[in-house]
């Protein structure tokens, strides 16, 4: 019988510094770990602790997994101290990812903030893999400052792609910044989306999730078409330990992707 708590070893092949607080780790698992975009993995620093992360790489990339990690707590602090060629433990994937086939022939609006772009990058790469199947793909991304933007080297490539529209904002601009200034939700006023034929996919810090969702609803997006990648303290990953409870759901098993419609009545939805 399979022991769901067991880990697979994964070597840190490369560490990319995204911002002063965020690094992307390119992992090469000993046994390949296939995931659907939006699913998450548990990553263990041996003997130290374990934390959940949603891969930021494409699920079509089968030999490596990338995770983009912000220094935010005990485990992530240790991870940031780790070096290339060191070994971590991983298990998963867990939860339900984005129902990509439901998004075919629709306008897909992606709303991301800060390190919340990590799972959305995996999602975006998945869409781009079959870009013709979507009517439009729009990425609205916000960060605190231009320095805090993640995946800086990818944006120039993405901007060249037909079928992908990109709008970016920063809360506080500098003199070289030529894009939008203000909270990320202002970008939603700039894109005209046919809300009858669209889905919106949101991931970011708690405050942004709340106001992003609110704004999308004001603009006429349907609760059942707003997909939220929810963050909770997922620990076991298999719906048993209780730490990630969100109303009657366990985020690890029933999520981490939920429609707003599913969770709108949960009193603890926004943190």
């Amino acid at each position, binding site marked *: 019988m399979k*022991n*769901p708590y067991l880990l697979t070893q994964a070597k840190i092949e490369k560490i990319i510094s995204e911002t002063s607080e965020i690094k992307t780790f390119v992992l090469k698992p000993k046994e390949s770990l296939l995931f659907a975009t939006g699913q998450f993995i548990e990553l*263990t620093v*041996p003997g*130290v602790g374990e934390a959940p992360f949603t891969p930021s790489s494409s699920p079509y990339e089968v030999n490596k997994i990338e995770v983009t990690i912000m220094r935010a707590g005990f485990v992530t602090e240790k991870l940031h101290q780790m070096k290339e060629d060191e070994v971590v433990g991983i298990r998963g994937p867990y939860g339900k990812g984005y129902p990509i086939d439901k998004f075919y022939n629709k306008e897909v609006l992606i709303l991301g903030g800060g390190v919340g772009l990590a799972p959305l990058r995996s999602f975006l790469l998945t869409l781009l893999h079959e870009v013709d199947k979507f009517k439009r793909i729009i990425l609205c991304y916000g960060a605190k400052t231009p320095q805090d933007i993640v995946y800086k080297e990818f944006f120039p490539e993405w901007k060249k792609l037909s079928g992908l529209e990109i709008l970016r904002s920063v809360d506080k601009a500098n003199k070289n910044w030529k894009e939008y200034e203000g909270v990320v939700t202002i970008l939603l006023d700039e894109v005209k989306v046919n809300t009858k034929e669209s889905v919106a996919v949101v991931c970011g810090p708690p405050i942004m999730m709340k106001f992003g969702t609110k704004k999308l609803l004001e603009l006429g997006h349907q609760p059942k078409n707003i997909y939220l990648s929810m963050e*909770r*303290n997922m620990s*076991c990953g298999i719906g*048993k330990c209780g730490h990630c409870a969100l109303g009657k759901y366990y985020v690890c098993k029933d999520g981490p992707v939920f429609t707003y419609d599913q969770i709108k009545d949960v009193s603890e939805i926004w943190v």
Partner: protein
Amino acid sequence: MGTLYSINKTNWDSFLSRLSLECDLYAPKEIEDGWTYQLLTKDNIPQIRYEDYKYCSIDPIKIFFLPIKETVTESKEEALGSKKRVIIGLKSCDLAALSILDKVFLSEDFVDPFYQEKRENTILISSDCLDAKESCFCTEVGGNPFPEQNFDFNLTLLDGDEFLVEVGSEKGERLVEENKTLFSKAKEEMVQKRQQKRREMKAKVKGKNKVFSSKVVKSFQDMLKAKDDSALWKELSEDCVECGACTNICPTCHCFLLIDLAQKEKFFKDKTWDSCQFNGFSQMAGGADPRDELWKRFRNRYLCKYSYKPENFGLLACTGCGRCIDACQGKIDKREVLNKIAVSP
């Protein structure tokens, strides 16, 4: 209903002796304020005083299936393969809790092999309640003070030297078959007697819960959903000291913490009991916590038991064992809390 047999005390003891050849036997042992389980030797089998264990033990049944701490990253051969066990003295409230634990740990998508192995290797011998504590309320949450499910054998003590044994599983039927000279067919008057005793016991538990209307229980789900109001929950949780006794002692509470440890070159993960009542239980990296205040954690326990689990599993995650009432340092009576919710505007 399972097959009913009659067996006298001498034959029953022989039956247990035979089981003890292959299994560890756990039987009730009296301690201050109640009883717990002890590992029996074969010689002690005749000394089990079935008439003394009138209601549920102090420890919840989960101690046999979810140890307070266990290492979960060992390979199967090392970690599993525990000796077979027989547990004697279980009551219906604990057996009912197994229905919830099974839903959680044996769910199709991810089976917990540690739980499963213990569950498969355990023979459960229960008995009808002979009395009720002040805190007992199984009858108000859909249960009865006599086992109707999840046992291998259930004993009803009748007058004299005879037990009425109900067999509740295939495992049990096989064991009867292997030891058929010890069991005889139950007589009709014994069955009648059992019914009468059960009726009396049920009335007794109901009698203790007159103020706690079972009508309240029927509408728990809707009631709790509607009463989302923080002022009410703040008031209800005023005496809670966040000790976690209620969740530790609860037979259905299953939340745990995974801890990563290192011993020289070896790394492993331990699974230990945890409590949703503790500050930080739901805290995320970066510090955000959806249940950052006591009243939210307090509310969560009620919602989990009376609303979320029923929605997910079709079962209340409260079996009315009353242990959380007995264990509460703040003297909070769950029945009173639910009553207050029901009558609040």
